[in-house]
């Protein structure tokens, strides 16, 4: 009787085990397209077999195992953070890049080139009313270009502030959802796979926004850190905030303050956010824009350029004389209240007219077009007083434009690259998850060999392309 009961009990356990396996399979199929869902594997445990002791052997259902691999998940999240960073930088820099036309045809660089050309034409006919008027018109156009560029950078700052605020809000929402997922996981035994799927999807979304560190606890919950601080632990989440109103460090009045991200305790954690779209936005907002428009500690390339052009043109004109022998008048004015306001306030001096435009170098000897010639050559002058950090005015303007262009090109290239790396990490995860350890090891070895073969080919291409670059004849 005991044996019959034992056999019946064993078969009931086996039926229960297979029933549970079927449920797990059903769940896998239903959730196949759920973001973050990892296959569950039903495990079977052998029950002891000892007829003398009434133990009939057989199989019973064990705890459900997840094939979810935290290592691969972290690899995907790392690349998502880098991708988010590159995408945010690419979008913001593409917009700024439009201001700086590296061909020198439009924008500030174009207007600067045209001003030097009108100076040149004026030097050929210093008393001609048309060439004099052209100088005043082109100076007005250049000042307008500087003001437009300064205004555009100001608008870009405002837009980035809004995007940073929005990103912080999204991070806070996701942190709150992750805390909710944690709570659901901690309360279910074994952990609810749907809550785990939601958790993984929310962690991936969060990684796109910032470079978070995730550590999984024994109960299946995730602890999330941003920099040194906690964002989520268990069912508790902590909110971040964005601050744009701190007094800027340094001595430049009217300077725009850096964007600052604060943790729940009000501590500044801006420097700890280097990846994700928030990291990318902060890089452009706190590094690229200040390098152009200035901040509390630096004047910014646009203001440096505007001031150097205005100061040198004014110095040459005011030391020159008109054809009637009168002292020259400055061509430009700008607000000297703050070094960061020069580009935004640059304008044609209202006191100047064609008749007060001084072309003559008083000498001795007097050169009738001496000042005009000096102005025509100002853009390429290597005299110490005319240069900026050792570069001529046109070299400095070109380098500023090229610098923005290179940063934008790098961000665009990185966006493409990290998109591929996200796909690659996901593909590796898919290739290796859910197979036996032996099959997994074989696949790892096979893929490693293939990567090595492709790597050799890529090295040859790199070497060949370098050879070709060196073969281009130099002008």
């Amino acid at each position, binding site marked *: 009787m005991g044996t019959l009961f034992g056999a019946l009990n064993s078969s009931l356990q086996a039926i229960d085990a297979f029933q549970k396996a079927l449920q797990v399979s059903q769940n896998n199929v239903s959730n196949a397209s759920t973001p973050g869902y990892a296959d569950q594997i039903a495990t079977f445990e052998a029950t002891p077999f000892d007829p003398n002791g009434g133990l009939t052997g057989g199989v019973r259902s064990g705890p459900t195992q997840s094939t979810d*691999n935290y290592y691969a998940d972290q690899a995907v999240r790392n690349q998502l953070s880098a991708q988010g960073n590159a995408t945010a930088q690419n979008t913001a820099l593409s917009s700024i890049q439009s201001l700086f036309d590296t061909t020198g045809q439009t924008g500030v660089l174009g207007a600067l080139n045209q001003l030097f050309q009108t100076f040149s034409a004026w030097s050929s006919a210093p008393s001609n009313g048309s060439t004099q008027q052209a100088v005043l018109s082109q100076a007005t156009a250049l000042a307008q270009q500087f003001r437009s560029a300064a205004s555009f950078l100001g608008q870009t700052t405002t837009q980035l502030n809004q995007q940073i605020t929005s990103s912080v809000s999204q991070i806070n929402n996701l942190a709150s959802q992750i805390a909710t997922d944690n709570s659901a996981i901690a309360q279910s035994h074994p952990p609810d796979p749907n809550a785990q799927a939601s958790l993984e999807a929310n962690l991936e979304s969060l990684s796109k926004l910032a470079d978070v560190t995730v550590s999984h606890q024994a109960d299946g919950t995730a602890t999330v850190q941003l920099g040194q601080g906690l964002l989520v632990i268990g069912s508790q989440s902590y909110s971040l905030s964005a601050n744009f109103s701190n007094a800027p460090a340094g001595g430049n009045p009217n300077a725009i303050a850096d964007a600052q991200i604060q943790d729940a305790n009000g501590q500044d954690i801006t420097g700890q956010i280097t990846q994700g779209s928030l990291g990318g936005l902060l890089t452009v907002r706190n590094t690229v824009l200040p390098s152009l428009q200035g901040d509390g500690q630096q004047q910014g390339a646009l203001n440096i350029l505007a001031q150097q052009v205005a100061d040198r043109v004014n110095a040459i004109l005011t030391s020159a004389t008109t054809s009637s022998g009168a002292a020259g008048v400055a061509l430009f004015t700008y607000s000297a209240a703050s070094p960061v306001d020069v580009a935004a306030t640059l304008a044609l001096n209202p006191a100047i007219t064609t008749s007060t435009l001084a072309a003559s170098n008083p000498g001795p000897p007097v050169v009738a077009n001496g000042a005009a010639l000096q102005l025509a050559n100002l853009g390429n002058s290597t005299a110490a007083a005319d240069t900026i950090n050792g570069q001529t005015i046109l070299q400095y303007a070109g380098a500023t434009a090229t610098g923005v262009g290179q940063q934008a090109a790098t961000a665009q*290239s990185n966006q493409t690259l990290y998109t*591929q790396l996200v796909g690659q990490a996901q593909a*590796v995860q898919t290739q290796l998850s859910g197979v036996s350890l032996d099959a997994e*090891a074989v696949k790892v070895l096979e893929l490693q060999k293939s990567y090595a073969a492709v790597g050799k080919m890529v090295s040859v291409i790199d070497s060949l*392309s370098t050879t070709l670059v060196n073969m*281009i*004849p130099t002008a």
Partner: protein
Amino acid sequence: MSPQASCVAAESRLADAQLLLSQANAESLEKCSETLREVVDLLDGIAAQDARDFSPSLLASFLRIQASARNLKTQIDHGSMLLRGWAHLHHGTGYTADGLPQLNTPQAAPICEA
């Protein structure tokens, strides 16, 4: 084929290779190797031509090809490191005397003779 046309073809093949590389399976990687061999042939063809006929505008194409190759290298390094980490986590049995990870890779099953 003109150097410019070869560059266009090489860039197109490199874009294909980038996509194949991100699929991370043996078949795709084999195809990726074949695609990259075509790029090598195209670049070899350009290098065999008289450099005095090269237009300065080719420089931008060569630099793009170089940048693409370096991006592919980053992808390969990333995939390779990912696999190493995975293998270390799942198949690691400790470290060698040199501090390198030691892996327990599958052994050939003994053959039983009838």
